[in-house]
């Protein structure tokens, strides 16, 4: 067994323990602000090493196939670590601002969920996948409700997330059990081999439906999305951001691992399921977002809608489609992180409502500009990454639709395009608040160093992915030949 394969996970675990012990060692009542920096530094180092090292050649497994270290997993590791890095940076000042006393536990949980997601992406077996998923979920349940003493809503968000998450988890588990019954194996590769010749028995379809539903919860597709707005609204902003990008990416990893890899031969079945949910998502998320006043809720609905777009690539199922999904996930990561970072800075002293952004262009032109980039990127406007990302996704969809004659997919892409106009409305409303509306408060919004670093990184990536995406595409192409 090659333990080298699992080195990144070990490193992250080590980081978690380091944080945990540093917290223990620090005297009672002392500032634990530096823990954020430690976390960020740790993530940055691991990330740098990962980026510098070459992709694993071919799938390498450890623990008897329960753990896969392939290039896909590597890409997701990079995604999660980037998100974690940004979330740590965002947390440095956010925790102080919200007065969270349990910073040590906070960072420990943050590292744990990151670890869980990395394991998730590397899972080679339904069991390890499920365990990693639960580790991730439990960590997030706790993180979401960490502001407990502050308000009634954080425990509300926690219990909602837990109940609904547990249902999804039960659905997934039930589906897994049927799959196990049908195939006699839990290994993803085994399932892939088995599904080659599998008949479309009702039990198999049922299992696929349950598994897809469970995964849809994770990426928040309508109608399994309803937890997202409530949880996003109440969670600490860095966690919301982390949840919105990393947890969704984890869901994508699962979709790619389970559906696209193990059940590739049944694509004609599960793509229907996803397409039904996509259609619902495009309508529901975009339309309901129009009526939102709370910024984080608005972003929640936006992220639900974005999940719908991501599904185009998954449904297309082609190398191009999967590449597009990964690229968009990457863009979306930086974009959403930037947006939430700005929201967090603005709502430290201001309102978490949409109106809290009023006059931001006068108060802090830089922040407003970054938010503008982020929002436009989300809206798919050039020259930002979201544009190329969406273009890429739509290209994958149109390619499949036109060249493989999947008319429904083509229609769905057209529908996505139409609904993206609706989405533009609420993105423009955000811009309107910042640039057009005057503000009563003229004082600039404070942007501490950690936030500046995070924002700078995000903005840079939003622009690079939009203007010159070629290197990133090449990198992804190595991962998904």
């Amino acid at each position, binding site marked *: 067994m090659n333990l080298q394969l699992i080195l990144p996970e070990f490193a992250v675990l080590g980081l978690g323990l380091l944080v945990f012990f540093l917290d223990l060692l620090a005297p009672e009542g002392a500032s634990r602000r530096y823990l954020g920096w430690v976390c960020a530094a740790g993530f940055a180092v691991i990330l740098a090493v990962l980026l510098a090292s070459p992709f694993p050649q071919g799938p390498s497994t450890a623990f008897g196939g329960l753990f896969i270290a392939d290039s896909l997993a590597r890409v997701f590791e990079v995604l999660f670590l980037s998100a974690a890095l940004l979330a740590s940076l965002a947390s440095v000042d956010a925790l102080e601002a919200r007065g969270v006393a349990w910073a040590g536990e906070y960072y420990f949980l943050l590292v744990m969920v990151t670890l869980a997601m990395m394991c998730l992406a590397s899972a080679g077996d339904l069991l390890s996948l499920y365990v990693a998923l639960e580790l991730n979920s439990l960590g997030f349940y706790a993180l979401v409700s960490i502001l407990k003493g502050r308000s009634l809503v954080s425990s509300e968000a926690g219990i*909602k997330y837990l109940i609904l998450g*547990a249902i999804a988890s039960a659905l997934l588990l039930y589906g897994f059990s049927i799959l196990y019954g049908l195939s006699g194996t839990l290994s993803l590769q085994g399932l892939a081999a088995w599904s080659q010749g599998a008949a479309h028995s009702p039990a198999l379809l049922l299992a696929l439906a349950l598994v897809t539903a469970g995964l849809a919860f994770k990426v928040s597709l309508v109608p399994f999305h309803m937890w997202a707005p409530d949880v996003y609204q109440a969670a600490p902003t860095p966690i919301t951001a982390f949840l919105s990008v990393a947890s969704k990416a984890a869901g994508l990893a699962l979709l790619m691992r389970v559906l696209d890899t193990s059940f590739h031969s049944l694509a004609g079945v599960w793509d229907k399921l996803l397409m039904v949910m996509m259609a619902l998502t495009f309508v529901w998320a975009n339309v309901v977002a129009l009526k939102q006043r709370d910024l984080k809720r608005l972003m929640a609905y936006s992220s639900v809608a974005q999940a719908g777009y991501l599904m185009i690539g998954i449904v297309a199922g082609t190398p191009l489609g999967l590449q597009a999904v990964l690229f968009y996930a990457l863009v979306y990561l930086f974009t959403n992180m930037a947006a939430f970072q700005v929201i967090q800075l603005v709502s430290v002293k201001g309102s978490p409502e949409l109106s809290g952004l009023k006059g931001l262009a006068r108060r802090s032109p830089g922040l407003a500009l970054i938010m503008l980039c982020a929002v436009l990127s989300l809206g798919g406007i050039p020259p930002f990454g979201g544009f190329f990302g969406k273009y890429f996704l739509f290209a994958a969809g149109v390619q499949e639709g036109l060249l493989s004659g999947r008319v429904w997919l083509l229609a769905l892409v057209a529908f996505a395009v139409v609904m993206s106009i609706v989405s533009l409305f609420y993105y423009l409303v955000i811009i309107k608040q910042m640039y057009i509306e005057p503000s009563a408060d003229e004082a600039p919004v404070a942007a501490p160093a950690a936030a500046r670093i995070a924002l700078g990184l995000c903005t840079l990536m939003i622009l690079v992915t939009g203007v010159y995406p070629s290197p990133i595409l090449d990198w992804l192409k190595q991962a998904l030949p």
Partner: protein
Amino acid sequence: MIPGVGIGHFLVLSAALFSVGLYGVIARRSAVGVLMGLELMFNAANLNLVAFNAYLHSGAMAGQMFTLFTITIAAAEATVGLALVVSIFRARRSVRLEHVDLLKG
């Protein structure tokens, strides 16, 4: 295995438990009741796994192993869930889930 009892019997039982559990999750007023419903759902899946392992795939222990892990995880989840219930109760002096609706829209 059990004379006159096929895998189908176990499956129907688990389906029933799963459905009943889901009903409990949706319809119970008390948050604790909801958590109990969730346990039923997990157990339904566990029963499936064990039954499949016994009836169809007895060559390995994958189903049983999975069940062991899920039992543990369910316990952990119950712990966190109950902690949340307690914290909600502290804040609201009630665990009626339908009143927990500050976040909406």
